[in-house]
């Protein structure tokens, strides 16, 4: 009786442990997928900015003066905010396209309302004739609104009339946030102390500084100097700049133009970079359909998706015939013996070799010995060799499982061996073989390590076998290692996961349909 109870208890405990562990495993997997999807869909990117984001200023209770001009942009431009430095570059004709400013790419055009020309040049610290010379269109408000309406990449500087405000934004346009203030500091603040210096300041850091709760620069990673916050607005430009350049440890929020002037005069003032959190949708239609710019820092991934498909198709094209032929040989022709078992063991070993080894092989043989350099052909062949064992093994299994009596029936009708293979065995094994190829493709799509040394990293769409081609997995790796953007890496990762998932679903459907067919056969 007691023994029975003990057994029951052991059973219950074991069951509970198994339940908990399996739940844990599922929860972990769900967490990973969920996080991946979340990061892929939603971006919350920390970027470094020279200017202080308006939201940070508001958090710190700093009252910024209304800008002397209104800046609006075409509604399709997706420009969310403009810094004083960008605006100045625009006015000087140094900006040619939107790619670095917004998620969309288009040629850039600047329009300045004639009555706003003086204020704009004063704000940006340049002469009005420089603006006109930069290629900007200077005309009446009505005229520039008409012209800018059809140009996606247009930015307009309008005068702030007495009655005008954000309320009467013309339709088809948007008003980006203008960041015109910087956090300037005495040069002593940003110097290197040992291995440390004041880094990029978060919104909280700035609030702390301005409110006085951060009293020493060492708290922000700098030297052991007390913080001295100046009220630049009260002091006025001349006095503020003078104080800032002479008082050790001093800092102040000031219009970017003041800082710029002071810098031009060679005063020892520096700028403290602050962090901007850019949140919003991550993976967008633009991201999927635009070419890549500057190694993935800007633009989309269209060409990279294209390259991925080309690479995978070529891999299948190379690996499938080789693999199927090898499988046919192993099942149908090879005699059982030492050589065959060595070949088979070799295939299994190849299947287990880490892909970095294949990458090294590709580098030494295809890239260097054959002189194909980093190219589509080198990468494709490397990956094809890598997935070959998978294809051979699955095809072998599929061919072996074809009913022996089908072979005999075909031979018995006077067919040769090769006729039997082509007309009966391969068609019967087609589902299993396809499954193997699809699994191999799934592996090829996600392969990174074997490609690092072989396929190159050009973000252009491949032109021929010899051109360097970046694929999705490589793109993710490079976006992260080159420090471009984690959010963009996650967006690419989501695309890659969707591709792999699709391939797996196709494989699964094929597998079930083939087993259903076989079951149907035995039911008859």
């Amino acid at each position, binding site marked *: 009786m007691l023994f029975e109870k003990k057994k029951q208890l052991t059973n219950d405990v074991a069951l509970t442990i198994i339940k908990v562990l399996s739940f844990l495993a599922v929860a972990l997997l769900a967490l990973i997928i969920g996080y991946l999807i979340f990061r892929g869909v939603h971006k919350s990117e920390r970027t470094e900015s020279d200017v202080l984001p308006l939201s940070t200023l508001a958090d710190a209770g700093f009252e910024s003066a209304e800008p002397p001009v209104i800046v609006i942009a075409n509604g399709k431009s997706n420009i969310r905010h403009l810094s004083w430095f960008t605006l100045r570059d625009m006015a000087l004709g140094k900006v040619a396209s939107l790619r670095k400013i917004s998620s969309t790419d288009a040629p850039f055009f600047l329009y300045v309302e004639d009555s706003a020309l003086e204020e704009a040049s004063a704000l940006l610290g340049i002469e009005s004739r420089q603006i006109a010379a930069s290629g900007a269109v200077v005309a009446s408000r009505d005229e520039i609104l008409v012209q800018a309406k059809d140009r996606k990449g247009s930015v307009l500087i309008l005068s702030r009339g007495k009655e005008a405000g954000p309320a009467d934004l013309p339709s088809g346009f948007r008003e980006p946030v203008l960041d015109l203030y910087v956090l300037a500091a005495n040069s002593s603040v940003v110097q290197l102390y040992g291995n440390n210096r004041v880094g990029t300041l978060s919104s909280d850091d700035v609030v702390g500084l301005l409110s006085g709760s951060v009293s020493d620069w060492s708290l922000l990673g700098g030297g052991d100097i007390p913080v001295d916050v100046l009220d630049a607005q009260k002091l006025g430009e001349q006095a503020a700049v003078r104080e800032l350049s002479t008082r050790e440890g001093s800092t102040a929020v000031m219009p970017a133009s003041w800082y710029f002037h002071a810098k031009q005069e060679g005063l020892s003032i520096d700028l403290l970079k602050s962090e901007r959190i850019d949140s919003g949708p991550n993976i967008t239609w633009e991201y999927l359909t635009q070419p890549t710019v500057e190694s993935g820092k800007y633009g989309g991934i269209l060409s990279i998706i294209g390259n991925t498909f080309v690479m995978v198709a070529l891999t299948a094209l190379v690996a499938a015939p080789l693999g199927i032929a090898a499988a046919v040989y192993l099942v149908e022709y090879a005699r059982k013996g030492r050589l065959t078992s060595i070949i088979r063991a070799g295939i299994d070993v190849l299947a287990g070799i880490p892909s970095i080894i294949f990458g090294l092989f590709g580098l030494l043989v295809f890239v260097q010995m054959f002189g194909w350099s980093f190219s589509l052909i080198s990468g494709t062949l490397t990956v094809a060799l890598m997935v070959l064992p998978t294809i051979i093994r699955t095809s072998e299994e599929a061919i072996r499982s074809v009913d022996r009596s089908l072979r005999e029936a075909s031979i018995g*009708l006077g*067919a040769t061996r090769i006729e039997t293979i082509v007309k009966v065995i391969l068609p019967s094994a087609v589902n299993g073989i396809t499954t193997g190829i699809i699994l191999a493709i799934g592996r090829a799509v996600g392969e990174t390590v074997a490609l690092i040394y072989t396929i190159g990293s050009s973000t252009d769409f491949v032109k021929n076998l010899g051109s360097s081609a970046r694929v999705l997995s490589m793109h993710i790796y490079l976006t992260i290692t080159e420090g471009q953007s984690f959010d963009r890496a996650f967006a690419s990762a989501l695309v890659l996961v969707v591709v792999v998932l699709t391939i797996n679903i196709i494989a699964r459907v094929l597998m079930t349909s083939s087993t259903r067919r076989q079951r149907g056969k035995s039911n008859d």
Partner: protein
Amino acid sequence: MIEHTGGHLFDVTDLNLWYGSVHALKDVSLAIDPNTVTAFIGPSGCGKSTFLRVLDRMNDLIDNVRITGDVIFDGHDVYRDYDTMELRRRVGMVFQKPNPFPMSIFDNVAYGPRLHGRPSKAELHETVERSLSQAALWDEVKDRLHKSALSLSGGQQQRLCIARTLAVNPDVVLMDEPTSALDPISTARIEELMTELKERYTIIVVTHNMQQASRVSDKTAFFLIDDKRCGYLVEYGDTADLFFNPKDKRTEDYISGKFG
């Protein structure tokens, strides 16, 4: 069809067969007449299926098979004079388990003719219809020739396999326990079919079912296995004689159910 001037269609003398070092058939000699049904009976493992497979060289598919003795088919030696493809066209085979190819009914029957030439569409249709009719399947499948052969019932599948064999115009049809996987009704249809087919073909059938042998065959060969697990021919003769007036004691014992 071949013209025979009284001779035997198959003439086997002193056949011995080894799988590697295992002696599987010992000193088998028998002759088979055209347009008859010959049955091979005997207990499991007695080598009757192996012997059947000697006649169309199906044992060639297995490694390490060695054969001695003479197997003469239609005046020529099977192992020396024939091209295997030609031999297997003339000596067709129906297997134990129905094994249609995973393709349409039409393509199954057309498989053989397509191997041995480039028949026109009309010729092919004619051959398929003839073969299916001879196999007593035409009426059942004529409306769904392009459906998968795997959709047929087991008995229909086996008749389809017979039609597939007949489509290449063989002289002999070897049947290796053709009804062992079928229900009694399908079995009866196949047996009927054998009797009809012997008008045009020579049929050799391996069977476990002695009633079947006595029902359908003209001649019967009885195989046994010795203590070294080697098969040999005990008695061969007219079915009526063998069943009702066996010469050998072992035949009598087997037929009366004393062993086997």
